[in-house]
């Protein structure tokens, strides 16, 4: 169960950039959104970190998990339905602020 977030770095409406990182492990940030810009749609809560849990770790400290929205036309070059959107759950340590 997700806990209420005590110290969230982002709030709904903030513009964010998904980090473009490449490292092995049980990473829950799909490749196709790394390096893409989106916005914080909602704060889901704090959850144990799956990158640690998957290897028998305790997943602590818990990480804030956000629902991040993207314009489909910004994610895919040839996407032509202008209003369509994509939402993904992303942990805070995969996000950085952007202007």
């Amino acid at each position, binding site marked *: 169960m*997700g806990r209420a977030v005590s110290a969230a770095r982002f709030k709904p409406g903030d513009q964010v950039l998904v980090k473009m990182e490449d490292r092995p492990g049980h990473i*829950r*940030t799909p490749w196709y959104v790394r390096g893409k810009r989106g916005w914080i749609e909602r704060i*889901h809560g704090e959850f144990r970190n799956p990158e640690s849990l998957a290897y028998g770790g305790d997943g602590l400290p818990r990480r804030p998990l956000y*629902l991040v929205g993207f314009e489909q036309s910004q994610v895919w070059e040839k996407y032509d339905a202008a209003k*369509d*959107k*994509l*939402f993904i*759950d992303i942990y805070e340590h995969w996000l950085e602020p952007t202007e």
Partner: protein
Amino acid sequence: MSDAHDKADAHDHPRHELGHYARRIYAIRDLLLEKKILTPQDIQEQIDYQEQRSPANGARIVARAWSDPAFKARLIADPKAACAEMGIDATSLNEFVVLENTEKVRHIVVCTLCSCYPRPILGRPPDWYKSLNYRSRAVNDPRGVMREFGQDVGSDVEVRVHDSTADIRYLVLPLRPRGTEKMSEAQLAKLVTRDSMIGVVDALPASAARA
């Protein structure tokens, strides 16, 4: 492994007819029983638990939400509590979110990384949900995927894809079909298909309840 188990369990197939993984599963089960880590009752209880998780749960929830606006509001505000009201145990879900379709917005759910799925509400995911084809195309061509399922989405409608990659599980609350105003919850539930709760299609038309 005992000889008795070799004869005719495993859905009544003699064990030598089973594939490698099935034989391995039964061997592991036998070991767990022999070492008294599990009892046959433990296994049966788990089978019963798995079997009671089916799209019929989701259909009941959706039909209630269509019939009772106050329930719908509770379902969207606190989905697990609303499930509990109906005797549906959603506590094993880390976090559960209901996505309401409208005339202007359609939601579609995918897990591009694996097969995350709201199992207590919808049972086991269909094979296509886990296929590489669906997992890759649901995000970059959701309208094309929906068209293949028989659902044309107009250009005035916004499509929202939810890639369920972490601790959240999503259920789509489809639009209530036209012409169903006088239907009971039980009749409405017949219109709520598994696929409509994943979001690849709308619920069935009113005529389907009379079939």
